[in-house]
């Protein structure tokens, strides 16, 4: 259904930019935009080399945003993220050197490779929209969007993010390998020069902030809210789930759904939006029971079954 419906004009330009660079990544592009527009962040879980960096760089370039990249390593310090005050002997005072977190769009690569201390520096920034350096609170730039990646293959020497911190990410995505045809196409495109050189910004930062406001104003009916709550409640009683999704998850789902509706140029949310987004929003916010894990279930699958069985409100009560 969605493919037949027109995208929002502004968003369409961004997406077409991404399409020029990335092949077969509309879904991830759209979902990244959902997170961006909803003021949230994305956790990408995938192997290296499938275009995570390219996606986020294209996004930054299209939106005329400041792009920063942090490569997380075990010896990375919090100050490497937030920035550091350095004594300037000439001026006789400490001078703040801004860290990469003070960009607009930040790619936090392999976030699970660094120590929890450094992780929490980033995550605090994501949550508080500010960082504290040497006792000074420094507000982050707006818009601010983090795309963190983690490699699911290597567990050696990693610090998996705790559940509470996973909660900071609005969506969790997987990129996946391109289809063979798509990969061939990719080789063709990059043979001479990389297409990212050719794209230009289609939106200013200010416009983006305006869009974020508009997303906030998307109407969500009581019925749809009820539907979200139904889904959340279902995760709390599902036998395969040890810890269900929190009310914060419901809020996240609402925000994401509004952004999604906006992307499809609707000023109201329909249950389909919620239904589509629920696995991305909820699956990293629940913990499966050990039995379910041993049975080979993933939280995505469990959320999918919940979603495909939850009653969709289809009747209005007239008073």
């Amino acid at each position, binding site marked *: *259904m969605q493919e037949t419906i027109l995208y929002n004009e502004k968003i369409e330009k961004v997406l077409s930019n991404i399409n020029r660079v990335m092949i077969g990544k509309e879904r991830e592009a759209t979902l990244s935009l959902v997170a961006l527009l909803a003021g949230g962040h994305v956790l990408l879980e995938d192997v290296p080399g499938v275009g995570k960096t390219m996606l986020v760089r294209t996004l930054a370039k299209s939106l005329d945003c400041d792009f920063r990249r942090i490569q997380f390593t075990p010896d990375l310090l919090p100050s490497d993220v937030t920035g550091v005050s350095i004594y300037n002997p000439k001026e006789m005072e400490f001078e703040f050197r801004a860290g990469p977190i003070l960009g607009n769009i930040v790619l936090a690569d392999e976030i699970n490779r660094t120590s929890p201390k450094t992780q929490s520096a980033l995550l605090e920034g994501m949550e508080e929209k500010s960082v504290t350096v040497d006792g000074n609170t420094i507000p982050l730039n707006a818009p601010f969007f983090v795309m963190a990646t983690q490699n699911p293959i290597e567990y050696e020497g990693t610090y998996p993010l705790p559940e509470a911190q996973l909660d900071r990410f609005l969506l969790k995505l997987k990129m996946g390998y391109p289809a063979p045809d798509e990969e061939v196409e990719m080789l063709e495109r990059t043979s001479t020069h990389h297409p990212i050189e050719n794209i230009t910004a289609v939106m200013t930062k200010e416009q983006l902030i305006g869009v974020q406001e508009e997303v906030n104003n998307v*109407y969500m*009916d009581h*019925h*749809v809210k009820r539907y979200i709550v139904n889904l959340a409640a279902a995760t709390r009683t599902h036998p395969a789930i040890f810890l269900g999704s929190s009310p914060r998850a419901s809020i996240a789902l609402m925000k994401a759904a509004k952004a999604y509706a906006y992307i499809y140029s609707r*000023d*109201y*949310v*329909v*249950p*389909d939006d919620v*239904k589509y987004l629920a696995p991305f929003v909820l699956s990293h916010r629940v913990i499966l029971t050990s039995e379910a894990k041993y049975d080979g279930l993933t939280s995505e699958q469990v959320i999918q079954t919940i*979603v*495909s*069985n*939850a*009653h*969709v*409100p*289809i*009747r*209005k009560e*007239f008073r």
Partner: protein
Amino acid sequence: MSASATNKIPFLYTSVLYFLGFFLFLEWIYPVQQITDTSNLAIFIVYAAFCFIISMFQMKWWLSFLLKGLTMLFIIHTLFLPYTFLSKLWLQSFYIEFAFNIQALVQQNWYDMTALFRSFLFLLLIWLMSYLMYYWFVVMKRIFLFVLLTVIYVTILDTFTVYEADGSIVRTFIISFIAFGLANFFKVIDHESIRFAWLKKTSVWLVPLIAVVLFSTLVGYAAPKFAPKWPDPVPFLKSAAEGAGHSGAGSGIHKVGYGEDDSRLGGSFVQDYTPVFQAAAKEEHYWRIETKDVYTGKGWEPSKDPSYQEQQDGRIALETFDPGVETERHETIVEFQGNTNIEKLLYPYGIRQVEAESDTEFLLDENTGEIRTQANGKDVSLATYTITYDYPSFAIDQLRETTAEDPSDIKEKYTQLPASLPARVGELAKEITAAADNRYDKARAVESYFGRNGFTYQTNDIPVPKRGQDYVDQFLFDSQKGYCDNYSSSMVVMLRTLGIPARWAKGFTSGEKIADNIGDTDNTYDVYEVTSANAHSWVEVYFPGSGWVPFEPTQGFSNLTDFHVDVENLDENAQDEAVEAPSEQDKEKPEQEMQQEKEAENETATTSATADNSGFRVSWGYVGIGGVLLLLLAIAGYRLRFRFKTIILSIKFNRKTGAKTFQEAYHHLLKLLKHSGLAMEPGQTLREYAKRIDNRYGTHEMGMLTDHYERMLYNNKMEQSQTETKKLNELWKNLIKRISA
């Protein structure tokens, strides 16, 4: 289905199905020999088999046409034509036959058609059926209609013709259920695109099907079966057409009612609740018409030809009881209903005076007590008349104590018995009356004998005595089931074997009380309605000094005659027994009611239980018809409920705009789709559903309607413009048309 050859059901299996169809078709042909004058059935069966085989192999159409056509001509040839096959002469005579028959057809002289032509048409029919059956069984795999038609055909033939379909129905059952199973299985395989290959290897899947069918057949065959609850419809239809009386002649089944010929009793009859007359009377009593005195072993006849005497001024000189019997004077008005044709007077005991139209003449035959009504020398049936009568009340003690000898003429005439009467009837009578020492007690003993000894009151399945069999003997010792004629005849015959003069009386019972206390305060009447079903026969026993006293041996009926005990010459013994007499009747009641008497009758002793019963039965037909109609209406209503709702909603939708109406219409659509097997799945959103529906019907309407509905539901957009409403209405109607198509 055509996508892969592996999905195709193998030829072997479709042929099995087709051959089951052939066997079902044979069930249509088998009875032909019995119910028509067709001979050589084997040839038709062979031809049918031939046609079916040709169809099965799906030859080129021209080849199959040629083969079937030539075979048909060859059969005609061997059956009818003496010339060389397809020679000039042969063709000529064939042409002549044909021309003649076509002419007969055109002129609608169906009977002139020759055997050759009829055979030709029949063979043609078989030929066409082979095509039709191929289509039904192999192409469509829809066989229910044919099976249903076969069952109807077989049952109708079984019911209405001489054809015995016992075996046929079992065969039909087995064949059709195996065919159902196969057809359904193949349909599912087609429908779900299951590869048949794996099934080819093994026929195990067939085993449960056959086992289930055989098992249910065996159970059905071995299980006890209820007798039919409904009377056989054939006699009812026949008697409705002929209007025969239940006391009428001969064997077979009759409709109940008053009839004149009682010379051959027996056989079943069906109830007929057509009202005959209404009577305003003070009390219930028998409506006597006549008595008969000669028992022939098969029925009753009068002993001599009637000699009628005209009764002056309606004064009837008929004495059935002695002047000494205590009487009470009453009046009753009889009014006939509809076009009943009884050209005789129906009268209570003690009739004195009749008032009717002035030119009516009353002719009395003293021998039988029959009073014919005439006007200007012609028999007429009166519309209404009034009878004044002295209603007798017999003193039980007097009846019991009578010792006088019977007058010799009465003794001779009313103890007549056929020589062929088996001796065991008399022995039984002696046995029953062994304890009684007087005539009254003997009569009572015989009267009440039937209530206790395994006799059943019923009107259907009553045998007619065979040649050499006695009607009474058959009832007493053989069938033990019957209706008034059986009971009354048996009592008369048994009393006669004891030398007690008795005769057989017939007429009507008092009928059903339909109104209470009509008329003046000091002169009130009850109104009774008497129907054909109240036609009855009972017993009159002669008592010297009292006359003819009515008795009622029939189960479920009680004696309408008044008995009393004279206080003056009462002795203790008599009182006991006098009280006992009616109470005996009472005791029998519950048992008798349980036996479901079919005729309405007196309520004096029995309260109105039996009368209610009769009322129930009268209306049963209407209740049945009403019930069936209601059921049909309900089914029709249920089937058409969506259509009605659609109409109502579309009217509403046209007139009223607004979210609520739209929601109602939209949800009606959902229900309609659900009814068409396209229910929303749990967890499905409207968009997903709409997409599915639009894909299914190749439309876009559902998507558009859903879009609007979503706006209303999820965007709280309540108002809609006039043009929007119109468009939505259009979309909605189109979609409903599409769904209902």
